[in-house]
């Protein structure tokens, strides 16, 4: 690499002329925005998405900090002051009301439940996205027999009655361990992502910039990690947000049936499950607030997903 290829023939005036010609048609702004910054700018213009982000932020804040401020220690649950079977409606002291039976504060339950429910929703999504991205990348990049084999596995996984398998697995492997639930949900949420990533690989690997990278000698590894995956990023993010919502509902459902997380650990689904027998007594506040929490979270996550989809769509302009 010597300077021998410095433009010998090119006189300074030549370079100036070229620069003038190149600059003529367009002036490039001095402020540079990366794709991510552009996406963020568009995301900010999406009101519902911002609302969703705020709600989710508050919920996550509550989930992380809440239990520290409002501890719910089962060992120190005070005995009910008098033997009442029914719960108590919202009051100044317990503004989400109290449960029947042990008379626990519903607000504290919901706050403690947020931690488990959100943890399950996000970590199982993470597992699913990692597996799905790896499987989809291999299938899409290698192609041929490998692709066929992996996609048939996906087909089989998708045809399994997921709920039944989850119920059986959670009974089989122990009683209501949170990590177990996370792993089970994770193992059942990668198929959509893997199909998505595969299709992204199939389309992006034929794009001209990938060919250009090949032409200058770029390795497959770098093509995958620097060219294809970053361009497949947005659909992955969008569909992961939907997985979070799905898995939070799924967890609530499984816990509601009594096959999920150990009933003594509050999750939104568990609270609902416990409330079941009290609903005929008119204890509406007991299921209402955890139910609202689920709806709010899922809505927030879906709004964020919508906002991300718009923000990453190159055809929409902020």
């Amino acid at each position, binding site marked *: 690499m010597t300077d021998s290829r410095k433009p010998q023939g090119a006189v300074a005036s030549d370079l100036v002329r070229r*620069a003038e010609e190149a600059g003529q048609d367009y002036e490039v702004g001095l402020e540079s925005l990366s794709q991510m910054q552009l996406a963020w700018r568009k995301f900010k213009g999406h009101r519902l998405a911002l609302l969703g982000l705020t709600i989710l932020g508050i919920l996550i804040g509550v989930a992380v900090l809440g239990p520290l401020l409002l501890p719910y220690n089962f060992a120190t649950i005070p005995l009910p002051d008098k033997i009442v079977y029914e719960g108590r409606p919202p009051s100044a002291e317990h503004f989400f009301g109290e449960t029947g039976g042990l008379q626990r504060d519903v607000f504290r339950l919901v706050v403690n439940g947020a931690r488990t429910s959100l943890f399950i929703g996000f970590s199982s999504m993470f597992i699913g996205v990692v597996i799905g991205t790896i499987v989809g990348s291999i299938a899409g990049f290698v192609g041929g027999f490998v692709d066929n084999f992996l996609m048939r596995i996906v087909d089989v996984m998708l045809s399994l009655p997921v709920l039944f398998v989850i119920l059986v697995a959670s009974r089989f492997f122990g009683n209501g361990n949170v990590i177990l639930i996370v792993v089970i949900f994770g193992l059942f949420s990668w198929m959509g992502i893997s199909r998505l990533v595969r299709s992204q690989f199939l389309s992006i690997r034929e794009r001209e910039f990938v060919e250009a990278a090949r032409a200058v000698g770029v390795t497959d590894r770098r093509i995958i990690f620097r060219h294809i995956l970053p361009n497949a990023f947005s659909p992955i993010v969008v569909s992961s947000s939907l997985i979070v919502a799905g898995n939070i509902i799924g967890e609530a459902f499984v816990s509601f049936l009594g096959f999920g997380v150990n009933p003594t650990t509050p999750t939104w689904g568990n609270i609902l499950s416990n409330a079941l027998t009290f609903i005929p007594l008119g204890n509406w506040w007991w299921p209402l607030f955890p139910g609202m929490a689920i709806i709010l979270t899922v809505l927030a996550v879906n709004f964020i997903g919508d906002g991300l989809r718009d923000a990453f769509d190159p055809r929409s302009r902020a």
Partner: protein
Amino acid sequence: MTEMTTSTTPMAAGEPLVRVKGLKKHFPIHGGLLRRQVATVYAVDGVDFDVQPGEIFSLVGESGCGKTTLGRSLLRLVEPTAGTVTFRGRDVTGLPAGELRALRRKMQIIFQDPFGSLNPRMPISDIIGEGLLAQGLTDRKTRDSKVEDALETVGLRREYTRRYPHEFSGGQRQRIGIARALALEPEFVVCDEPVSALDVSIQSQVLNLLLDLRRDFNLTYLFISHNLSVVQYFSDRVGVMYLGRIVELGTVAELYRNARHPYTIALLSAIPEPDPRRRKKRLVLTGDVPSPVAPPPGCRFNTRCWLREKLGNPERCVTEEPELRVLQSGHQVACHFAEDVTSAAVVAVAASQPAIAPAASEPA
């Protein structure tokens, strides 16, 4: 009459930089339940030509005639099915991955689409510097300064390295694509329709840039285009492609003045006339280009050939595939009856065709 069926160029003065011999690229079509191969696309089907050091060799032809596939198989961006490509006397077609990477420094490509050929998620410094990195230049600082040099050479500001492709116009993006190829200091560059996606006002700038760069860096171009005017302005020699084969090959002066293949003549007659008051007779070809899945037997052009019609459909056109042969004038043509092509014959055929409808309003 010099009847030769050799594929070497008559003007071979010294060793050619690139020699293409019998190059074929066939794409299988899979179908049916068992994904069996049901057909083959004969995209490039036996092409021979040489490119001399320092020259601009152009390939012209309609869409789908295999020009692009040919350009890509020279660089092995698609693997040729058969035939050889020799670069500086070395066969490129069998090279293992490591040596191929080293060769990529010497043979580069400029793409047609200035939007699709730059990764939207990469800053310019990475787009241009990536090749240098792949070639083992791991030092960020040297790489960046080389990237800036390359930017300056193509007329862009050195400060643009941190920008992203979407911030540039089409012409500037094309310059970035050129800088990417140039950063590797190649000797041979395949220009795959480098200006056809650009505004006409920008086209000439980019063409002139390419000419400047050739002078400054002693480059050799394989210029792929469907624009005959651009080719005439730009190149030294031209190969005309039809359905995966070269049907005529010669110097620009020779080919534009004295074309001998019926297809070339029809193409040339389609060049738009800039003066609206002058109407010229066009030789309009009938029908479409046959599918490259099933090229016609014999001469590939026989389904649309006006000369064959005029000669009373000789048997030879459908039974025997014409090879490229060298004519007296020095250029090569793949037609059995090239000698029957005279200006009188062309005029007669053109006259028998309906004139192109004049524009609605005559210019004053």
